[in-house]
């Protein structure tokens, strides 16, 4: 079974390495990710949000609602952990 999994993993890894042939080179300033959307954020973030840290400006100002929704994710995860791990008195009956 492990041999089949190893072959599958190597095949998928080879496919991904084949896919990197179309990726831009590492650190290329003209790569698509660095040249279409991000210059606007870098140039305007400080003037619009008064936050020197651009990452914080995008996270908390441009994507503020997304970050607020993220707190819901963390809250739900904490709630699930609390419900799963609490010591409930009727656990013995539940086991049956």
């Amino acid at each position, binding site marked *: 079974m492990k041999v089949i999994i190893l072959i599958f*993993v190597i095949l998928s890894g080879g496919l991904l390495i084949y896919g*990197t042939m179309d990726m831009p080179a590492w650190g*290329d300033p003209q790569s698509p990710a660095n040249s279409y959307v991000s210059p606007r954020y870098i140039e305007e*973030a400080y003037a619009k949000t008064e936050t020197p840290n651009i990452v914080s400006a995008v996270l908390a100002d441009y994507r503020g609602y997304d970050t607020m929704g993220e707190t819901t994710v963390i809250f739900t995860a904490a709630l699930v952990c609390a419900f*799963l791990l609490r010591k409930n008195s009727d656990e013995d009956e539940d086991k049956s």
Partner: protein
Amino acid sequence: MLDFIIGKFNFWFYVILMAVGLFAMLAKRNLVKKLIGMNIFQTAIILFYVSIGVKKGNVHVPIIVGGHGHEGELIQAADYLNPLPHVLMLTAIVVSIATTGVALAIIIMIYRRYNTLNEDEIIEIRQKQLEAEV
């Protein structure tokens, strides 16, 4: 060929890291080891995205040099790293922490009920239970 190797070698490390994580998720029988494999997988993807935002040359981290009090100076996009992959991966790290926490809680529950974390043993115990019920 040499340009190809020098330009793309970072992606290969992430592919190798991802393959290690995928193998651990599929082949390991211990549930905690499976979870560690999932974390390695997520780390590989996070590193991949962060590496997309890199610019070679004399560039700063995405914090405006001088900070407050430099309103008049022109900010050149070529002088700063791409901040957007960092922001998106910050979100991904939060989700990864949440999934890891919930998965660990579920693993603790499984251990309390079956007294083992080995997948095969859990399936065996469960089948015996089902046969006993029938």
